[in-house]
Each structure stands twice: as structure tokens, then as C-alpha cells.
């Protein structure tokens, strides 16, 4: 009897322990998954704040938090451009960001000057080697300079965006020394060095992105193929999409390079970045044109009022600014409804205003 009682105690003890163990393991499993989600949310929050900080201050920074956990991040370009993180939902960034996720990232702010307005955007990309295949286009050198200026300059940063040249099966550093970063490459190009390279058939590593500059881009070309018509315009193709992208500034090309060929639920990431950049730019330029048109009308009225009240001599040079303010307001009124239209006239007027001292830069 004693033995059976002790047996019963053992069995009961084992049953209770087994139950407790199962409960604990389940709980810990759930807790760990929840902790991972919490950590991912924290990392995305830090990413979002880093984008705002870089946009506001213009100070570049490195970002390594994505190395802590695997992330599946994509950009949806529907009615609202939202960054979607698998398992965490979506968030809408309030500043234009061209991004691709990697373990060691670098953030910087770039800008595109339309002549009357500077469109700023953040570029957030992982350590990358941009492999250039310059081809025989007469605008190859200008195009390379434009692309380099639109991407982060990582000189003095620990995460690097470097440049190499490809010719056939060979890939070598673009400026004869490693690593060839933006500043070094621009110095070489400014000094008149021409990059030599043709069609690239080399195998590319995971962190290499191919940019071909050609007089004629075909659909099957790997990476990004740029076909310049002039120093800052042309068309481009991205491998994996049948779309022909036209560009009037290098931010468009930067968008294709940063997003690149990665496929996600919304298509090819480079295409999404291109759409996002143009949509954000149109939105910002439209608002800027509205505000600035109103502003110049106000200034024209204000200055005329001062003259009419006799507070200024009728031959004062500054009164010449009234006409320029009115011209500028008229040009910008047109751009407010067609923000991506030609801003040449507005740019010219702005230049004349600056020369006359009518307005600050």
C-alpha cells in the first residue's frame, strides 16, 4: 500500500510538472515572439525618427539596427505611400525617403534644385558598391557625376557607398584606389578623367548594383540602364519591369538605383521608389508654388504701397523688384497646377531677382 501511494505521488508530481513545463514553454514562446515584435517596432520607430532628423538637419548618419532582426519592408505606392513591414502593419512617412533596407545603412539628405525651389529628400541605403558600365554615350561623364551627387557621400563614415567600373568580366575600383567614394570619384571626374567601361557581363555580388549608361537601353539589361539625351535628362530602364522611366533630374535615377531590382508584393522596389519620389515632389512643388506665388504678390503690393505713401524715392532701384515679383507670381501660378512642368521661366526670374537683390536665396 505504501508503495502504491508513493507511486501515485510520483505520477501526480510528474503530471503536474509536465503541465507546468508545457505552460511555461508556451508562455516563453509567445513572450519571445512578442518581444521580437516589440523590438521590430522600436527599430522602425528609430528608422522613422532618423529619416525626420536627417531631413530636418541635413546631417548624415549611419544606422545598423536592422542587423538585429530579419525585416521584410516594402513601399506601397497606392493612394498613400506607406512603408509596410511584414507582421507590423504600415506607417506613412511625412518626408520623401528613398530607401532599401540592409544591415549597415547610411542616411543622407540630397536635394534637387529646380531653379526656383530646392526639393529635399532622404536617401537611406545599405553598404553598396555601385558598378558603373559607362559605355560610349557623350553624356556618360555628366551622368555619372549627377548620379554620384544624388547618392550619399560616405567619406568619413564607417558604412560605405563605393563606386567601381565594369568592363566585360572585370570589375575594378572607379578611381584607382580603394575604397572609391563619392568625393574621390567626383575629384577625378572634375579633373577630366574619363571612365572607361563597356557592357558588363561579370557576376555581381549581393551588395553590388549595376548602372549601365548607354546610347540605347534594351529591356533585358541587368540593373539600371540610363540613356541620357542631355546633361540631366533622358530615359532609364530597370531590370524586371517593362517600364521606360523618363528623368529630368538625377533624383529619379537615384530612386531606381536605391530601390533596385528587389521584388515585393507591390512590384519592383526601384519602380515604387520612382513613383514615390515624383509623387512627393509634385505635392511639394505644388504647395511651394502656391505659397511663393502668393508671397510675391504680397511683396509686390507691399513695395508698391510703400512707394505710393511716399516713404521711398520714386527713383529707388528696389522699385524695379515690383515687376519681377509680379512676373514670378505669374510663373508660379502656372506651376501650382502643373508642378512638374517646365520651371525654366521661374528659374530665370529668380536669378534676376537675386542679381538685383530683391530677395534672398
Amino acid at each position, binding site marked *: 500500500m505504501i508503495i502504491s501511494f508513493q507511486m501515485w505521488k510520483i505520477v501526480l508530481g510528474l503530471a503536474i510538472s509536465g503541465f507546468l513545463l508545457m505552460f511555461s514553454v508556451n508562455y516563453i514562446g509567445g513572450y519571445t515572439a512578442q518581444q521580437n515584435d*516589440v523590438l521590430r517596432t522600436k527599430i522602425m520607430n528609430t528608422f522613422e525618427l532618423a529619416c525626420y532628423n536627417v531631413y530636418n538637419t541635413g546631417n548624415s548618419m549611419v544606422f545598423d539596427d536592422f542587423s538585429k532582426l530579419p525585416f521584410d519592408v516594402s513601399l506601397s505606392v497606392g493612394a498613400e505611400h506607406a512603408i509596410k513591414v511584414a507582421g507590423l502593419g504600415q506607417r506613412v512617412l511625412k518626408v520623401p525617403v528613398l530607401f532599401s533596407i540592409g544591415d549597415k545603412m547610411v542616411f543622407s539628405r540630397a536635394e534637387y534644385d529646380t531653379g526656383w525651389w530646392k526639393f529635399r529628400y532622404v536617401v537611406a541605403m545599405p553598404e553598396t558598391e555601385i558598378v558603373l558600365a559607362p559605355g560610349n554615350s557623350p553624356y556618360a561623364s555628366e551622368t555619372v557625376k549627377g548620379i554620384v551627387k544624388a547618392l550619399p557621400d560616405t567619406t568619413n563614415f564607417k558604412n560605405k557607398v563605393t563606386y567601381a567600373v565594369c568592363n566585360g568580366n572585370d570589375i575594378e575600383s572607379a578611381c584607382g584606389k580603394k575604397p572609391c567614394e563619392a568625393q574621390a570619384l567626383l575629384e577625378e571626374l572634375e579633373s577630366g578623367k574619363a571612365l572607361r567601361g563597356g557592357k558588363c557581363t561579370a557576376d555581381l555580388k549581393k551588395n553590388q548594383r549595376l548602372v549601365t549608361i548607354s546610347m540605347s537601353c534594351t529591356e533585358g539589361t541587368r540593373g539600371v540602364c540610363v540613356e541620357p539625351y542631355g546633361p540631366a535628362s533622358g530615359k532609364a530602364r530597370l531590370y524586371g519591369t517593362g517600364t521606360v522611366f523618363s528623368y529630368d533630374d538625377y533624383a529619379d535615377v537615384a530612386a531606381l538605383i536605391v530601390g533596385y531590382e528587389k521584388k515585393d508584393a507591390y512590384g519592383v522596389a526601384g519602380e515604387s521608389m520612382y513613383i514615390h519620389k515624383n509623387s512627393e515632389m509634385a505635392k511639394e512643388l505644388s504647395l511651394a508654388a502656391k*505659397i511663393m506665388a502668393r508671397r510675391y504678390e504680397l511683396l509686390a503690393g507691399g513695395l508698391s504701397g510703400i512707394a505710393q505713401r511716399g516713404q521711398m524715392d520714386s527713383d529707388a532701384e528696389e522699385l524695379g523688384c515690383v515687376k519681377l515679383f509680379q512676373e514670378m507670381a505669374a510663373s508660379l501660378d502656372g506651376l501650382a497646377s502643373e508642378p512638374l512642368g517646365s520651371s525654366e521661366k521661374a528659374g530665370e526670374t529668380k536669378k534676376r531677382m537675386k542679381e538685383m537683390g530683391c530677395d534672398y536665396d
Partner: protein
Amino acid sequence: MFEYVIAAFFIVLIIIFVMFMLGSYQMSQLELEKQKFSEQKAEQLLKRVVSSPLVAKEDGVLDDSKLIAALGLCDDMEQFFGKNWYAVIIILDSSGKTVRCQQGEYSTDCNYWVICADNLEARISKEKASGAGEEYAYTVPVNVARKMGWVTRRGTATRAEPALIEVWTYD
């Protein structure tokens, strides 16, 4: 034997208690993190407004003509800066008087701009009623550059005045 049962009972109680404590600690950390993130976003909005060329001449120096031009363009400003915010800018005059600037006319006599606060109650009441968001308001010293602050017979010049900007946001 009875002691073993009591000991086992207390052990189980302690394990379950620790699990619940961990869980509730986790929840409180999440809440704190969420609040901290909202505060930081509000701070970044303030920095963005104060440095944006849409209303500023340079970082920390707002332009009076741009501020007047921005009045009445709240829907567009919201598309750009986001929803549920307003800004009040006031020049700290020696007179102590406040004269609100109106759209449509450039004037150096007014010293007080309100951007996007009109009809604020109507615009955010829906969100406030449905959500459990937080309000944040930050005030920061800035300068306002009066474009025609100095007027002489030969021309005008810009004059920098001390001012404050308050940015209120609901998240």
C-alpha cells in the same frame, strides 16, 4: 505530506505570479515606448516647421511674407506636414500688444500668425472621439524676419525680430 502539497502550491503560485508580472511590465514598457515615440514625432514636426523653406528664411528664422502667404492654405499644409496640428507664431514686441495678421495683405504692423488652427475643433473632434491619442504642444524661441522691416528713402531691408512659435499636435 501536507507540507509538500503546500510547498508545491506556493511554487506554482510564484511561477504564475512572475509570469504575470513580466507580462504587465512588458505592457507598461510598450505604453512608455509608444508615448516617447509620439513625443519625438511631435518634436520632429516642430523642427520641420521651423526649418522648412515654405515658411522659413533659414533654420530658426521664419519669414513674415511666407507666413502671411501660408495663412488660409491649411489643407495644402496638412498634405505636406501631416494632419492634426497647428502653429502660432508671435513676435515678442516691446509694446506687448498682439495684432493678428490677415491673409491677402503684407503688413509689418501685425505680429501674430495662426496657421491651421481655424475650425480645429471640427477637424479633430472625430479623431479625438474615436481614438485614445495624446496632445503635445511645444513652444520654442525663433526669429521672424520682416522682409520690409526697415524702410528708407533708398530701399527696404530685412529686420529680425525675437519671436516664439508654438506647435500643437494631436497623435
